[in-house]
Every structure is written in structure tokens, then in C-alpha cells.
């Protein structure tokens, strides 16, 4: 729940946030609790001190009232007269206010002279605390005793002794002795808060009275720590183990009349119980608040998470290209905005999808059109190729015709000469001139003509021999070969061909095709000279080095090519020769040079005529 796919959830993050917010409060609560504890301890200590003071005053008043009563009795006339019977009566009167108490009159030796507990004349023992009697006689001041055990009753007692003075001198010790339990009862009447206790401790650090467990602890010495702290001081607070062995907090106050200590204490556990309860409440409240905040955070986190998660399906739907209407989705402003953005994104996607579909349709239409167009073009190209085939055929036929004409021309002269030699034989015979030498001469001449004719046929045959592979060939030789095919024709047409050849120019290609190009250029030049009646016609073929290539120019004096057609002469079927022209020659020539031999064929007007330049 906290982590899925290794990512912390919003819920866990919010819970952490709450925790981060709550921790300082816990710390502050702990601080406050500690302060409260300190305050409570101080408060309790102060209250105990107040209680101790009040008790101290109460005990003091009690003691002072006894002292006053005894002093009053001591100053009665019957005492002065030594009328002990009367004194006993008065003492018994007084003792009605102090049940369980006894009044004793003793002399300086401590010998009891009168004991209210016993009838007069009964033999009486000495006082059990002669030191106190001696102190009364010595100081002539009232003395309150420490705890002691009664000589007669063996009870734990307190005695208050006052001097009886006659003529400024102590003559008797008048004392009241009462059980220490009276003081415990006095303490009990003080209504201390529950679980508080009070005790009275005499100058010997012995417990005189105690509100709790008086029967067990009265007569025992108090703890050393209390003694160390309290004695020597008039009042104060102390924390210690009390006589019961319980860790407690106490306050003490010194009783003025007797120099006793009144201690008021409370077990620390009791004191702390309040604080612990308070702290527990605070802690509980903090825990509850934290839990509530955590739960709220958890709930809010879940709501936010749900809100966010509610966008998952729509987002996936967008991915699937489905139409989206989120409407009022989104509980939070942010998710609402995201939902709106998703809706917009969805609309945008839909729109783009529509656009894309349209574009695709257009594209496929365009593709169809393109295919149609391509098919048309292919058909056109095929047509063109067919046409080209036709053209090539035509061109070949034209060349063939031209060549046959040339062969005829080349053969006419040797045939003529041969004819004359043969026809001359009868003439020689008639004249009787036939000799062996003449016959040999005639045969030699005839064979020379026959061989020449045979060579001519061989030349033409070579020219028409198909070429499969590119070869390295001498450009100059190819030029001479081409020229040999037409020279007879050219000389009969009065066209001079002059050569200006740079030797050693070798190129790679198809020599017959190259020769065909030269023939096309030469025959074009010749035709143009005839058409324009240029006499004498002159064609110059020049070869030269052109960088790493070979340059060949064929220039004539036929007047050049007019500017409005010079750009079109390499187009197929373009001809200036009327019905005699096929318009194929230069087109073929350019194809051979540029496509088959990767060269260039260009034309320009130069001097008296046109100049074709071949670069291969």
C-alpha cells in the first residue's frame, strides 16, 4: 500500500508529512510535561511547607496553652501554701481538658511530690527524666521534653515542665505528662490531603507523632538523610526515603516552643501519579490527535490518489485513441485541471487523428495517382525505347545505305581500272605487243585493284562488327579508319579532310562506335557543304591532350549552325536535312560518347563553321 512498483504513494507521503508536523508537538508536549512536573513538584513542596508551618503553629499553640495552664496552676495560692490536696484538685480540674494526661509536682532531685494519677500519700517514684527537671531548676524556664517512656504506665509520653517560683527561686517542677498519641490525634485533626502524612520529630530525631502508622513508627528514629537536611534549619524541603522506606517528598518546620520538627510528606509515587496521569492524558491526547491527523491524511491521500488514479483509465483511453468526456471529473483543482488537459489532449488527438486520416487518404490517393502516372511514364519510356529501337534501326539502315554507297564509290575506280586492264588485253594482242612482262604487269595491276577492293570490304565489315567489350584503342587509328570509309566519297565531293593528330592518344571504349561518331560528324559536315555549296569544303580533325583525357575536334568551313537551333541539334528526330534527314545521327553520337564512353560531346561555332568537340 505504501509502495507499489517502488514508488512511494501520496498516502504514505501525506502520512509522513503529518508525522513531520506532529513530531515537534510531541517534543513540545514532552517539554511542557516536564515543566508541569517541575511545577507540580514545586507546588506540592510549597503546599507541604505551608501545611508544615500551620501544623507547627498548631502544635506550638497546644504546647503554649499547656505551658500557660501549668504556669497558671503553678502560681495558684494553694501551691504557695503547699496545700497539695488543693493543688491535686486543681490539677484534676485542669486534666479534664487533657484526658490521659498526668500532672506531677517534683522537687529538684526529681522526687515526685504529687501525681494526679495517684491519691495523695501514695509513695511516689522519682521522675523518669531527671535531666529535664534539673534543666527546669537551672533555667527557671518551661521545658518541653523529648519522647520518653513513662515510669509508671510505660507509655510513650511527652512532658512539659514549668518552674514554680517562690521569691524568684525555683522551688518545684510542675509538669504535665501526656501520651504522645495526643499529638498524633492533633495531627490527624489537621485534615491533610489524602495520602499526605505528617509527623512530629523531637530533638533526638525520634518520631513523636505520625498521622499514618503511628503505632509502628512513633519512638523510632527518623532517616539519616532527613536528619542531615533538616536539623540546623528552621524549615525547608527534602526528598528522601521516609521512615517507611518509601521514596517521598517532604517539607519541615521547626516548632518554636519545643524545637521539634514538623514534617509533612507525600510519597513521591503519589505526587508523581498526578503528573503521570497528566502526562498520560497529554500523551493520549497527542496520540489521538496524531492518529486522527494521520487517519485524515490517509483519507485525504486516498482521495487524492483515487482522484489521480481516476485519470489513469482516461489516459489509457486516450492512448487507445478513444474519445474522452471527463466532464466534472476531478475532485481537486489540480486533478480537475489535469482532467481538462486530458480532455483537451483527447480532442486534439482526435482532431489530429482525423487530420492524419484525411492526409492518409490524400496520400493514398496521391499514391494511386503516382502509380498511374508512373505507369504512364513507364509506358511512355517503353514507347520511347521502342521509338529509339526504330530510330536505331533507321540509323543503321541509313548508315548501311551510306556505307553501301561508299563501298560502291570505293569500288568504282578500281573496277574501272580493272575493266580497262582487261579490255586493254585484246588491244595489246591486236598490236602484237603481248609479252611476258606485259602480262605480268597487267596481272600485278589487276591484283592490286582486287586487293584494294577486298581491303575496302574488310574495312566495312570490321566497321559493322559488333563490339562486346570495351578496349583500349588508339584514337588516331580510329580516326584514320573512319576516314578510310569515306575518303573516296569525300574526294569525289571535293571535300578535303586534313588531320592534325597528336600521337599516342589512347582511350577506353568501343572503337567502331567511336568511328561511327566521327563518320556522323564528317558526313554531316559534308552534307552541309553540299547544301551550302561550299567549295572547296574543308574538314579538320585535331586531337590533343586535355588533362588526363583526350580531346578531339572536328571543325568545318560549312558556315556554322544558326543560334536558334544550336541547342536542339542533339535532340532525337531534329534534322535540318528535310526528308533526307532522320534526326538520329547527332543524338546517337551524343549517346555513344556520353553514355557508353562517359565523355562529352559539345558543339560551338568557330571561325568559318561548326566545331564539334569530343572529350573522352
Amino acid at each position, binding site marked *: 500500500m505504501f509502495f507499489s512498483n517502488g514508488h512511494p504513494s501520496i498516502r504514505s507521503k501525506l502520512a509522513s508529512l503529518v508525522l513531520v508536523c506532529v513530531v515537534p508537538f510531541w517534543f513540545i508536549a514532552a517539554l511542557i510535561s516536564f515543566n508541569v512536573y517541575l511545577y507540580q513538584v514545586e507546588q506540592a513542596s510549597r503546599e507541604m511547607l505551608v501545611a508544615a508551618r500551620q501544623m507547627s503553629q498548631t502544635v506550638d499553640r497546644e504546647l503554649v496553652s499547656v505551658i500557660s495552664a501549668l504556669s497558671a496552676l503553678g502560681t495558684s495560692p494553694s501551691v504557695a501554701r503547699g496545700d497539695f490536696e488543693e493543688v491535686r484538685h486543681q490539677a484534676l480540674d485542669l486534666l479534664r481538658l487533657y484526658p490521659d494526661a498526668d500532672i506531677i509536682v517534683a522537687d529538684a532531685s526529681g522526687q515526685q511530690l504529687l501525681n494526679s494519677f495517684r491519691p495523695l500519700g501514695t509513695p511516689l517514684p522519682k521522675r523518669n527524666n531527671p535531666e529535664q527537671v534539673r534543666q527546669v531548676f537551672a533555667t527557671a524556664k518551661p521545658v518541653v521534653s523529648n519522647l520518653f517512656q513513662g515510669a509508671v504506665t510505660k507509655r510513650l509520653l511527652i512532658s512539659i515542665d514549668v518552674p514554680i517560683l517562690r521569691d524568684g527561686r525555683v522551688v518545684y517542677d510542675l509538669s504535665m505528662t501526656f501520651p504522645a498519641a495526643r499529638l498524633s490525634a492533633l495531627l490527624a485533626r489537621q485534615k491533610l490531603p489524602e495520602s499526605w502524612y505528617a509527623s512530629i520529630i523531637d530533638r533526638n530525631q525520634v518520631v513523636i507523632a505520625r498521622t499514618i502508622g503511628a503505632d509502628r513508627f512513633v519512638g523510632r528514629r527518623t532517616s539519616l538523610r532527613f536528619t542531615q537536611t533538616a536539623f540546623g534549619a528552621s524549615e525547608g524541603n527534602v526528598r528522601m526515603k521516609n521512615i517507611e522506606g518509601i521514596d517521598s517528598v517532604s517539607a519541615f518546620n521547626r516548632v518554636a516552643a519545643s524545637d521539634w520538627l514538623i514534617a509533612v510528606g507525600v510519597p513521591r509515587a503519589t505526587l508523581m501519579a498526578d503528573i503521570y496521569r497528566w502526562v498520560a492524558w497529554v500523551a493520549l491526547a497527542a496520540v489521538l490527535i496524531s492518529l486522527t491527523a494521520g487517519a485524515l491524511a490517509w483519507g485525504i491521500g486516498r482521495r487524492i490518489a483515487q482522484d489521480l488514479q481516476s485519470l489513469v483509465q482516461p489516459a489509457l483511453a486516450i492512448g487507445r485513441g478513444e474519445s474522452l468526456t471527463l466532464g466534472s471529473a476531478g475532485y481537486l483543482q489540480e486533478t480537475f485541471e489535469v482532467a481538462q488537459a486530458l480532455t483537451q489532449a483527447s480532442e486534439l488527438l482526435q482532431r489530429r487523428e482525423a487530420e492524419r486520416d484525411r492526409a492518409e487518404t490524400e496520400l493514398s490517393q496521391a499514391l494511386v495517382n503516382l502509380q498511374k502516372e508512373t505507369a504512364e511514364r513507364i509506358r511512355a519510356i517503353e514507347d520511347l525505347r521502342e521509338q529509339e529501337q526504330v530510330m536505331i534501326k533507321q540509323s543503321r539502315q541509313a548508315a548501311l545505305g551510306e556505307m553501301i554507297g561508299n563501298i560502291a564509290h570505293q569500288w568504282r575506280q578500281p573496277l574501272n581500272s580493272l575493266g580497262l586492264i582487261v579490255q586493254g588485253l585484246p588491244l595489246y594482242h591486236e598490236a602484237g605487243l603481248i609479252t611476258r612482262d606485259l602480262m605480268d604487269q597487267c596481272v600485278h595491276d589487276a591484283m592490286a585493284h582486287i586487293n584494294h577492293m577486298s581491303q575496302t570490304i574488310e574495312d566495312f565489315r570490321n566497321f559493322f562488327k559488333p563490339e562486346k567489350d570495351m578496349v583500349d584503342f588508339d584514337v588516331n587509328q580510329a580516326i584514320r579508319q573512319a576516314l578510310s570509309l569515306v575518303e573516296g566519297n569525300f*574526294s*569525289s565531293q571535293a571535300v578535303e579532310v586534313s588531320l592534325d593528330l597528336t600521337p599516342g592518344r589512347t582511350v577506353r571504349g568501343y572503337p567502331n562506335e567511336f568511328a561511327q561518331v566521327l563518320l556522323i560528324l564528317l558526313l554531316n559536315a559534308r552534307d552541309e557543304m553540299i547544301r551550302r555549296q561550299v567549295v572547296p569544303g574543308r574538314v579538320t580533325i585535331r586531337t590533343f591532350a586535355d588533362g588526363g583525357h583526350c580531346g578531339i575536334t572536328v571543325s568545318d568551313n560549312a558556315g556554322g549552325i544558326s543560334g536558334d537551333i544550336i541547342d536542339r541539334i542533339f535532340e532525337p528526330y531534329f534534322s535540318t536535312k528535310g526528308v533526307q534527314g532522320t534526326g538520329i545521327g547527332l543524338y546517337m553520337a551524343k549517346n555513344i560518347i556520353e553514355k557508353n564512353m562517359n565523355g562529352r560531346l559539345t558543339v560551338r561555332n568557330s571561325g568559318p563553321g561548326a566545331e564539334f568537340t569530343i572529350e573522352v
Partner: protein
Amino acid sequence: MEANEAVKSGTSILLVDDDAAARDTLGSLLPIRFPGVAVFSAGDGTEGLASFQEHRQDIVITDLSMARLDGSRMAAEILKICPTATVIAITAHTSGPSLSDAREAGIAHILKKPLNLKELLGLLEAIVGRC
């Protein structure tokens, strides 16, 4: 160019042909048949015209198509100089512009190649007889 030793008959023939072989063959045959006839030869029209201007041959036998000054033009010039001269043209073409040019130039006889020697000799006999 070079006149035969037999100039005593008084008849002279000029052979004009750029084909040296045919020219020489014919040039060696003609004196056999016509021992008294002087035979001159020239390699083209210009040379032929020059020879004619010098020797005023009676008969001119010429090829029609030649590089420098073709047969028809040379014949025209010759006939301008000497309208009585007889010009015989020998041509491979049996029709076409060169033929009509030849006729226009006033060439009397046109023989076709390959040359029928009998025909030429017959023709020459007739002309030489008239001379």
C-alpha cells in the same frame, strides 16, 4: 601533261582524272589504237585547264567529280576558250545533278564507269576521223 612522241597526226587528247591508275592505263592504251595521237594527262580540273590552255588539245576526256575544279566546270572553261573542242565525260553517276551540270557545261559525250573501252575507242575513232 607529258605529250606522246606521236604528234604527227596532229590530233591530241587530254586525260583528266584524279584516279592515277585508271588515267595511266587509259593513257597507255590510247596510243596503241591511235598511234599518231598525242595524249596529255592531268590529275584534276585545274591542272587539266592549265594543260588545255597550253596545248589546246582536240579532245578532252575527263572524270566529272574531282576535288579541285570538277569536270563540268573545267569543260565549261575549256569550251569557253575553244568551242570546237570535244569533251567526253566519264562518270559513275548515270543520273543526278552532276550529269545535268555536265550537259549544261556543253559536254558532248557522257560515258559511264566502268568504262566500255570499245565504246570510247569507237567514239574517238569517229571524232579523230573528223579532225
